């Protein structure tokens, strides 16, 4: 009986204490017709050794060489200390810190996290996390709707340069509440929103601006922010938090700064792990904090005046406010935030800046190398951070498949979102990519393009 400590004696004595003859009687309130039969087909129980072998085999099967895919998830070095600490039983197996006195470790850590995230985003308030960047954007939109009481249209303008999956997810989150997402078009040649040709803005709740955008390109965030604010719209910045060690953070955009900053915390100490668990961060102005979804930790004092930490503003949340809560979120991504906090503490501002600068340099080197190959060129001109779209001069998907067969994950095929970009691939090189990885990519790509030619 895996994980069940009861001995035969225990069972007998416990049943006697309850006053039932057998275990089955405990289920006598379940109507007979609802009693489950056999659980076939269900594989037989495995010992830890057996499942260990199975998982090792499966994990080994998936291991591949260098990865040049980004598109929302980035491979970075994570200090060994990060997850060794985060998986300590006291973090790993703790419950949500509702009992504050028994959760000061987690609560102080989240307070530190909130402080770090505010620092990185140059914002005033951070919550304790949402599920991921994409669904978090949906929550940010709903928050904007609640916060911007002057505009009741339910219209939100989303830059077309936002990661397409983020847009899909946000749509799924907000769609049932009468919110409509509209497009702020992208100039195809430059890969950014054309600030020279901004539409007239009217009756829009909020504008969503990515930085860097899906193509790795840098948006004119100052101009866009001021333009949106001028028309009474709020600004939601969707950013790569690592990039914010180097780039202008949302709180500093334009005259007054963005109103809400969100994105995915994955680049801050979270392994790729097939897409999750990551976490969504969410920051805003202090004036909006009561509209915020998710948990928030505050510093206070105890009966003796000793400093301590507790969940606060819980009246926003579902367990108190129920149908009038700011969101239905309950369980969030606590442990990932724990790891990420430790990661940020270890790297510090200078460490993160170096990592960001190094990623930038690596991607530029990669792009330079690949663009030396005949037929390969950058899709957009202008500065990029972290990733860049290339045109391979031929359909990208088959090329990527062949690269994969050589153990190289060569990038993200753009054609799946826009058939016009079928030759396009989004490449990314982080600090973990070496010169020899880049050479290997270039050489393999050269071969493959040559074969195809």
């Amino acid at each position, binding site marked *: 009986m895996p*994980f069940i400590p009861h001995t035969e004696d225990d069972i007998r004595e*416990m049943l006697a204490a309850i006053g039932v003859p057998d275990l089955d009687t405990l289920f006598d309130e379940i109507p007979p017709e609802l009693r489950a039969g056999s659980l076939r087909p269900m594989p037989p129980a495995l010992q830890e050794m057996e499942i260990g072998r199975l998982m090792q085999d499966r994990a080994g099967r998936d291991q591949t060489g260098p990865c040049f895919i980004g598109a929302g998830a980035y491979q970075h070095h994570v200090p060994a200390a990060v997850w060794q600490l985060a998986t300590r039983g006291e973090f790993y*197996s703790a419950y949500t810190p509702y009992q504050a006195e028994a959760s000061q470790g987690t609560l102080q850590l989240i307070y530190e996290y909130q*402080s770090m995230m505010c620092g990185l985003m140059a914002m005033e308030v951070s919550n304790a996390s949402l599920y991921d960047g994409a669904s978090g954007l949906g929550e940010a939109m709903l928050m904007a709707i609640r916060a911007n009481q002057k505009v009741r249209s339910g219209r939100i303008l989303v830059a077309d340069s936002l990661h397409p999956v983020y847009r899909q997810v946000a749509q799924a989150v907000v769609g*049932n509440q009468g919110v409509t997402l509209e497009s702020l078009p992208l100039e195809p040649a430059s890969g950014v929103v054309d600030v020279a040709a901004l539409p007239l803005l009217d009756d829009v709740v909020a504008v969503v601006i990515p930085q860097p955008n899906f193509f790795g390109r840098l948006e004119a965030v100052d101009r866009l922010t001021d333009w949106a604010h001028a028309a009474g719209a709020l600004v939601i910045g969707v950013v790569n938090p690592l990039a914010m060690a180097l780039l202008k953070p949302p709180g500093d955009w334009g005259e007054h700064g963005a109103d809400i900053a969100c994105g995915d915390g994955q680049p801050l100490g979270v392994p790729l792990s097939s897409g999750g668990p990551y976490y969504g961060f969410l920051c805003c102005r202090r004036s909006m904090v009561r509209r915020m979804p998710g948990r928030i930790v505050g510093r206070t004092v105890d*009966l003796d005046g000793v400093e301590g930490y507790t969940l606060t503003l819980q009246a926003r949340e579902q367990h108190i406010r129920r149908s009038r809560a700011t969101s*239905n979120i309950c*369980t969030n991504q606590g442990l990932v935030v724990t790891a990420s906090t430790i990661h940020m503490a*270890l790297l510090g501002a200078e460490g993160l800046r170096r990592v960001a600068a190094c990623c930038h340099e690596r991607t530029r080197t990669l792009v330079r190398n690949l663009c030396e190959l005949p037929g390969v060129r950058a899709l957009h001109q202008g500065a990029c951070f972290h990733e860049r779209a290339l045109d391979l001069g031929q359909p990208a998907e088959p090329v990527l498949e062949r690269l994969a067969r050589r153990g190289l994950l060569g990038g993200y095929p753009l054609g799946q979102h826009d058939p016009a970009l079928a030759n396009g691939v989004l490449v990314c090189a982080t600090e973990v990519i070496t010169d020899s990885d880049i050479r290997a990519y270039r050489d393999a790509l050269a071969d493959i393009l040559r074969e195809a030619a």
Partner: protein
Amino acid sequence: MRQDRLIFDQGRPGRRAQVQAPAASPDTGDLPPEALRRQPPCLPEVSELQAVRHYTRLSQKNFSIDTQFYPLGSCTMKYNPRASNSLAMLPGFLQRHPWAPAAQSQGFLACVQELQEMLCTVTGLAEFSLTPMAGAQGEFAGVAMIRAYHQARGDSERTEILVPDAAHGTNPATAVMCGFTVRELPTDADGDVDMQALREALGPKTAGIMLTNPSTLGVFERRIREMADLVHEAGGLLYYDGANLNAILGKSRPGDMGFDVIHINLHKTFSTPHGGGGPGAGAIGAGERLQGFLPIPMAGRDGDHYRWLTETDRPQSIGRLSAFMGNAGVILRAYVYARMLGAEGMVRVAEFATLNANYLMSRLRAEGFQVWFPQRRASHEFIISLKRESRDLGVGAMDVAKRLLDYGYHAPTAYFPLLVPECLLIEPTETETREELDGFVDAMVAIRQEARRDPELVQGAPHRLPVRRLDEVRAARELDLRWTPDA
């Protein structure tokens, strides 16, 4: 004596963990100056040892399953196998990029697909998607699917979701997030949904009903088939909140009860850790009516080959709920757990969770505590009310909860469900020993004695933790939500 100061207060300008970032500082090349950050962010400036020491010490201030018994109703705080952790964190899994092609992801996909199937077997539903990232997102998916179903049929008048008054807060909150209005159903004296009220509430506006079974009152909803028939007849659908599935795992299947859609908290029933608040996973399963609407991506299988099912395969899907496929690492942990249990193990989960709960209930009742539904079997959890103690001694549920912390037990869920006064919702789970339960009873008895002798001792609890009772009013009024360099 030594305080654990904030990590920020331990820093010094220029200090850092030098091996963790590139040794050289590459210049920012072609980045336009106006795109750059002007001032470095305020982050801690500490050494590696400082960070390790700080977070190790902080961790010790937590209660956790690995250190304490957590009889926390509705939360199923059971043992989180250490094997799940190490196997989910094998390098091959950690390094897999979410966009890696299926051909390079067969190992991972096999785990996802097999877990989907196991969940179908154990719940009696037709198909599962594992993308929701917690219970509440599973609820969201399920209710959104109900909405999409009615819409697909052109049935746009159905604007109401019925929710029992005992329901978890996420249920009504979810219904609203999906654009519905909530109609609450009262509970009858036995803890079941009031059937008469249900009949009255049902009608052409009914989109569906959200239920847990066993309910958050800790009892099995006996007339569930009847309810299902009524709801279906009225044109509505049934949503099953699987937070309490631990109580009936392998014993009774929501699909057989008539539910159309269900979420399972893998971080409860399938023993993935709570992690101090998350991450979880809210796997969502559907019967025939709703399966086409399940969120994507799901893992599919063509013979020996596993692949992702996406928009193309599932045109009716409510879409994507996360950028990738949800909390993959949590799913792997649940998969490992499920495989270690196998069919027999699953049934035993329910049996021994129920045994522990009924034993603990019997013992507390024998010690004179007021069990709320004494005439009912406890499921995996049950409620006691401290109404009497509160009235006679001025010691309420929260006081007892806080005093339990001093005794080394995590407090049960207090003041939930809302309809029972001064209640504690107690769920011991199957992984605790009888001795641990007896120890808890002893603590409860001792605390009641303390409450008689010296109520202030209990009212002022906890006394042995890193802090005493915290001033929550001040926390909410004088908001201090982050460290700043000048404060």
